């Protein structure tokens, strides 16, 4: 780490985090490798400090409010109040609610509330991290240690933080050739702390391993009531040859939430992944997707819809690493910004010298609904060979006045016209999700999100 980076980092709050992590480490009796991983994480994030806006990767997102706030881990036991609040929120999930047949794991404030395996075939591990670490840590040791060692230590403050607080999350291991028809559902609920309790933080560590020719869909939902909270979600996925992952992340936390998430997917030859991110705000949200196409003929599709209103900042950061020949990637991110909402799209595609016959297409489109909303878009294409087909484009604009008039000329009020056009803009990404239940859920949510001055249209 250079001294310049040191000088520009934010050290507020770091000492308290280190103390909290060390306390957790002493509370969990663990094998030596795990203790080493945690303490290495602590010293790394202590040294790094929170990235500041001088760091190119964080230019548009100021973490000072997060660094300044104080958060505490929840006590190990789930209280009755948390249980009740979580059930209430879960019941509001409509088609994805309690009656859904999907195998599911539910966390409340970072602790396991319930695990229902549904009719998962044997041989598939879909378990919470804490249980795996307690009963069979050897199943995750290699992957966790390897991923920590790969970390770009000059960069990954939140990754190191995740190592330091490594405790809970989901472990998914799909054996060779297994195809899971039903999506796996992971629900993360945050509930407001009691009046005497400090705001809560949750560090989630997910580890998904897909053996060759296997496939599964994973749906992660983050739900939250009001009240400040901090979620740091680190998900590492390894896809074997010709494996397929479909990942959907829906982020619906309360208006005072800080949410930082990173999904990193490594692809073997012929492996394919699709990531769908739906972010409806929180106070400060950062979603990073890092896909490494490290096998020939691998492919990835990255889709994102981010919506922000006043008091919300949503930052989407994607990196696609075309490391091998004949890989393809498609990316479409759309932002809808209203009020004084702020959005960021920072997407980079790197095509390495050996990655011939790369096919990469990246698009970012943003819709601005008010005068004070703002979005920063930074698409980047870095190509190191000539035998490629790459394109990228970014547009930011308002609703098309001609379209608004066209709808009004057929009797729709200006509000209904704007709502319909806004909905149509966002629904393109909902339509890309395979699960009808997830689509129905998202359609409802997008309608509910439409700003109060836009009457929610009845769709279909």
């Amino acid at each position, binding site marked *: 780490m250079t001294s310049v980076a040191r000088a520009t980092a934010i050290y507020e709050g770091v000492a308290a985090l280190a103390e909290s992590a060390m306390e957790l480490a002493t509370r969990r009796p663990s094998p030596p490798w795990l203790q080493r991983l945690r303490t290495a994480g602590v010293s790394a994030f202590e040294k790094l400090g929170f990235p500041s806006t001088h760091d190119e990767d964080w230019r548009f997102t100021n973490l000072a409010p997060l660094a300044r706030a104080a958060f505490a881990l929840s006590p190990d036991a789930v209280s009755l109040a948390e249980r009740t609040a979580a059930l209430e929120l879960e019941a509001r999930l409509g088609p994805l609610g309690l009656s859904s047949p999907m195998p599911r794991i539910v966390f409340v404030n970072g602790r396991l509330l319930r695990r229902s395996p549904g009719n998962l075939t044997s041989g598939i591990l879909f378990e919470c991290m804490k249980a795996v670490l307690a009963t069979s840590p050897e199943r995750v040791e290699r992957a966790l240690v390897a991923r920590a060692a790969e970390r770009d230590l000059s960069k990954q403050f939140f990754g190191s933080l995740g190592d330091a607080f490594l405790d809970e999350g989901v472990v998914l291991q799909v054996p060779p050739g297994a195809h899971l028809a039903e999506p796996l559902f992971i629900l993360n609920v945050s509930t407001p702390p009691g009046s005497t309790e400090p705001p809560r933080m949750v560090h989630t560590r997910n580890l998904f391993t897909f053996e060759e020719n296997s496939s599964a869909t994973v749906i992660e939902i983050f739900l939250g009531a009001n009240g400040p909270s901090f979620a740091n979600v680190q998900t590492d996925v390894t896809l074997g040859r010709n494996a397929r992952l479909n990942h959907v992340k829906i982020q619906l936390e309360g208006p005072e939430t800080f949410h930082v998430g990173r999904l990193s997917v490594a692809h073997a030859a012929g492996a394919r992944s699709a990531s769908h991110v739906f972010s409806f705000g929180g106070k400060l949200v950062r979603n990073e997707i890092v896909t490494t196409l490290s096998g020939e003929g691998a492919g990835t599709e990255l889709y994102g819809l981010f919506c922000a209103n006043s008091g919300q900042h949503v930052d989407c950061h994607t990196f696609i690493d075309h490391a091998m020949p004949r890989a393809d990637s498609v990316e479409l991110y759309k932002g809808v910004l209203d009020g004084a909402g702020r959005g960021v799209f920072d997407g980079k595609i790197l095509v390495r010298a050996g990655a011939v016959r790369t096919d990469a297409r990246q698009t970012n489109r943003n819709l601005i609904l008010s005068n004070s909303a703002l979005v920063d878009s930074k698409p980047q294409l870095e190509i190191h060979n000539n035998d490629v087909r790459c394109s990228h484009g970014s547009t930011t604009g308002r609703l*098309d*006045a001609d*379209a608004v008039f066209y709808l*009004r000329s*057929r009797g*729709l*009020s200006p509000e*209904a016209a704007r709502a319909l056009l806004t909905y*149509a803009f966002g629904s393109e990404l909902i339509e890309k999700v395979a699960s009808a239940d997830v689509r129905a859920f998202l359609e409802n949510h997008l309608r509910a999100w439409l700003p109060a001055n836009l009457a929610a249209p*009845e769709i279909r």
Partner: protein
Amino acid sequence: MNLLEISNLHASIEEDGTEILKGIDLTICPGEVHALMGPNGSGKSTLAHVLSGRPGYVVTQGRALFQGKDLLAMPAEIRAREGVFLAFQYPVEIPGVSNTYFLRTAVNTVRKHRGQLELDAIDFLALLDEKAKLVEMEEALLNRSVNEGFSGGEKKRNEVLQMAVLDPKLAILDETDSGLDIDALRVAASGVNALRDGARGMLVITHYQRLLDYIIPDFVHVLSDGRIVKSGDKNLAKELEAKGYSWIEKEPPATVSAAAGAIAS
């Protein structure tokens, strides 16, 4: 009561104040079909836009009454709900909104305004099916996004379909014939004719006699430089086809409204 009564209507482009309509007088009674012709840029579409409430224009003089009510005071959507329909010269593409959903929303908004019950999905689809047959619109186009990727002719047919479904009292058709091939023109025209019912008024903007062979107008008006310079019956259109506009532009633009009034009464 007159369906539409326009008197001394002047309108300018909001942005730069250029006057486009320079005193229009036109009365349409229930059941009448009026054709509006005139050279490019004479203001035909501007008149259609001003009547339908498109933003970007300022009315500086005159008025337009629709069934005795001040049309120009109504917001665009109220005009539509009251029964004014504009078939656009250039229909707008609306990605992500299905034609069927859009039409159902529109028809129910209009019905609500008129104090009618909203149509449920089944009744609406029955209505849509009936009207789609009228303009020979394939089902695939109904399920696609509004006008997105439609051919020029398909867009125009979609306008006629919307008109049929929304059942307006006054339809303004702005060059609905342009871009149509010969068969499509016949289909669209017969769709329009099916909507002639003795009550509905129509203002048909066109450049070509060809359309008026199918939709036979009660009156023909010629707009030139923002004024109606000549009015007559269907034979006027035939004369124009033969002689061109220069023939009219040479004539003194006298007693235009009187002429139109004389024919109308």
